[in-house]
C-alpha cells in the first residue's frame, strides 16, 4: 500500500538543500500533490528540479561568493597536501600496512588511508560551509560540484581500462569499485561535512500577511 507520506529522503534533501522565501508553501504544495495521487517518481523529480532551480538562483545572485567558496576549498586542500598530508601519511604507514588492503588505491593502502582521506574531505567541506554561512548550502554544493567535475576526469580511464580488464578477468573488479569510490566518495563527504548541523531552511518571511482561507 502507498504511504501517505512522500519519500523521506527526498523531503530531507528538499528541506536541507533548497532555499527561498516560498519554500514552506512549495513543500506544502508538493505534499498536497503527492497525497492527491502523484507518484513517488514525480515527487523525486520535483524535489531535484527545485533544488537545481534554488541552487542556480543563489549562485547567479552571488557569483563572487561562489568563486570564493570554490577557491577557499581548493586552497585548504592544497595547503593540507603541502604541509599536513605528508606528515599524516608518514605517521600512518606503519599502521596502514597492518590493515586490510581490500580497497588498495594510491601510494598508501588500507582502510586507514581511506578514513583519513574522507575525513579530510568532510573537514574541508565543513570549512567551506562555515566560512560561507549566509549561503552555506549553495556554496558547499558549488565546491562539491567542482571536486566532482575534477574527479570525473578519471572516468574515461576507469571505463576504458579497468572495465575492459575486468571483463577479461574478474580479479580486476575490486579495482573498479575502489576507483569509482575514489571519484564519488570525496564529494559525498564534502557535502556531509559542509552541511553538517545545518538546520532546515527558515522559509516564510516574517513580513508576510496572514489571511484566513
Amino acid at each position, binding site marked *: 500500500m502507498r504511504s501517505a507520506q512522500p519519500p523521506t529522503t527526498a523531503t530531507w534533501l528538499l528541506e536541507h538543500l*533548497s532555499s*527561498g*522565501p*516560498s519554500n*514552506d*508553501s*512549495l*513543500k*506544502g*504544495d*508538493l*505534499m*498536497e*500533490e503527492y*497525497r492527491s495521487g502523484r507518484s513517488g517518481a*514525480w515527487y523525486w*523529480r*520535483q524535489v531535484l*528540479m*527545485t*533544488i*537545481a*532551480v*534554488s541552487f542556480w*538562483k543563489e549562485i547567479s545572485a552571488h557569483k563572487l561568493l561562489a568563486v570564493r567558496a570554490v577557491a577557499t576549498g581548493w586552497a585548504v586542500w592544497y595547503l593540507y597536501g603541502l604541509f599536513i598530508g605528508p606528515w599524516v601519511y608518514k605517521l600512518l604507514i606503519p599502521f596502514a600496512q597492518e590493515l586490510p588492503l581490500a580497497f588498495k588505491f594510491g601510494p598508501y593502502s588500507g582502510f586507514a588511508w581511506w578514513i583519513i582521506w574522507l575525513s579530510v574531505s568532510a573537514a574541508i567541506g565543513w570549512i567551506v560551509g562555515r566560512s560561507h554561512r549566509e549561503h552555506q548550502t549553495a556554496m558547499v554544493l558549488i565546491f562539491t560540484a567542482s571536486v566532482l567535475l575534477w574527479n570525473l576526469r578519471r572516468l574515461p580511464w576507469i571505463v576504458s581500462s579497468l572495465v575492459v580488464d575486468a571483463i577479461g578477468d574478474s580479479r580486476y573488479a575490486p579495482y573498479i569499485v575502489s576507483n569509482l569510490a575514489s571519484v564519488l566518495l570525496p564529494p559525498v563527504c564534502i557535502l556531509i561535512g559542509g552541511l553538517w548541523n545545518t538546520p532546515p531552511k527558515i522559509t*516564510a518571511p516574517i513580513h*508576510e*500577511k*496572514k*489571511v*484566513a*482561507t
Partner: protein
Amino acid sequence: MVILALIRLGEGAYGVPISREIEGRSGREVALGSVYATLERLEEKSLVTSELGEPTPERGGRAKKYFRVTAKGLREVRVTQRALKKLWHRLPQLEGGAS
C-alpha cells in the same frame, strides 16, 4: 505563462492550481520550483502580490501562498500582448495552417 495562468485562475491561485493550469495548457510537466522562482521574480518587480493562508494538516502543516496579479502586472501583460501581436503579424511562414 505563469502570469497568464494567474490571470485565468483569478482568486485563490496558489502553486498547485497554477502549475496544473500551465501543465493543462502546455501539455508538459511543470516544476513547481520553477513556478515559485518565477513568481518570486515577478513579486520583486511588483507585478504580482502574495498572501499566506492558514496552515492545513493535509499539507503537512504548511500554509498555501496565494498570488494575485497587480494593476502594474496587468499593464505589463497588455504591453507584451501588443508587442507579440505585432511580431506575429504577417509571417508568411506561419500562415496557411500546420505544415
